[in-house]
């Protein structure tokens, strides 16, 4: 793994989140997002809440949103599946936006979680969540900003799937 590439990507993602107005971030790591989570933790403008399970993060972000925060959750797609009830009966039912940055394990070329990769986009679609696959560093700002606007205006969760290439990891 090229640390410099991963760090540059992490810096770009954190910068993109802040340009999109995000100021409250709940996270549960995947190894591929290590640098992103480190960068979130280090950034003084972002409130970082590390989680034990992703579903509670959806609750924490919902509470923070009601109080005026712009929230994001960073997790793996396994964590997205863990969160589906909260995303349905809290986020969708109460119309609460949340920007989800989901590591796309089992994406093309990613070994080990092919089953998870196969169900990720169909589940996002079944739940009615708009989702965008982010592959290039130059698309980070526009995609995160656009997804946040979409979440805010539709008052729904919106997903951005992070791939190895945009994260600068092998």
């Amino acid at each position, binding site marked *: 793994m090229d640390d410099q590439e991963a760090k540059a990507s992490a810096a770009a993602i954190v910068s993109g989140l802040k340009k999109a107005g995000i100021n409250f971030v709940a996270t549960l790591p995947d190894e591929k997002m290590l640098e992103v989570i480190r960068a979130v933790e280090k950034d003084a403008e972002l*409130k970082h809440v590390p989680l034990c399970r992703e579903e509670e993060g959806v609750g*924490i972000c919902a509470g923070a949103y009601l*109080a*005026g925060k712009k929230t994001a959750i960073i997790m793996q797609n396994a964590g997205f599946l863990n969160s589906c009830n*909260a995303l349905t009966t809290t986020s969708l039912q109460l119309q609460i936006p949340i920007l989800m940055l989901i590591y796309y394990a089992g994406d093309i070329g990613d070994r080990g979680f092919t089953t998870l990769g196969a169900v990720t986009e169909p589940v996002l679609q079944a739940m009615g969540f708009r989702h965008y696959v982010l592959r290039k560093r130059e698309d980070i700002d526009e995609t995160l900003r656009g997804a946040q606007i979409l979440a805010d205006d539709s008052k729904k969760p919106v997903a951005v799937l992070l791939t190895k290439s945009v994260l600068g990891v092998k």
Partner: protein
Amino acid sequence: MQRYDYLKMIAPDAGDALAVCTGWGAREWWAVRPSDGNLKTRTLGLVSSIAAGLAIALPHRKVLALDGDGAFLMNLCGLPTIAMQNPGNLIHLLFDNEVYEASGGTATASRNTDAVTLAKGAGYKHALWARSPEECRAEFTHAWKQSELTLIAVKVEPGQPKDLPPLYLDEIENKYRFMRYLEATEHKGILKPGFDSKL
């Protein structure tokens, strides 16, 4: 003693605290403390996490989580997260009736489990059982004054009074009223109209 007996005792001391409720307890809380600062949640377990999110975002404002044993046990993994953040403005109240009351009354595992020990093990510095409504009230006002994250747990009998006023509140309406109440009492804009405001 039922949950309602305890809620009745706490309500006069709850001031302008934000209260996150769930299950049957919501209707009882509205009856004893009607306010747009009350929020009813739907997801079993998330009452404490939603309350924690509010408490972290508004550190100067008191927040109450009105939890039940079914919800508490479902979201055990939320306890270490809350304890790590340690919001001193959050009072976590657990009404343990040992059944899934809103789902028909089958037993939870709480008769065999000590919620206070669980909370302490998760990192809550203050967690205790209160044995009567009076003791609960005393612990509540103490936690309020100390401004330290506290779990106050009580064992209650299942059931609720028959003459409670119905809760005629659409949940989206509840959300918006809650947010507008926060805007008014926190003196800040939360719901910012985006595109439409430019027309």
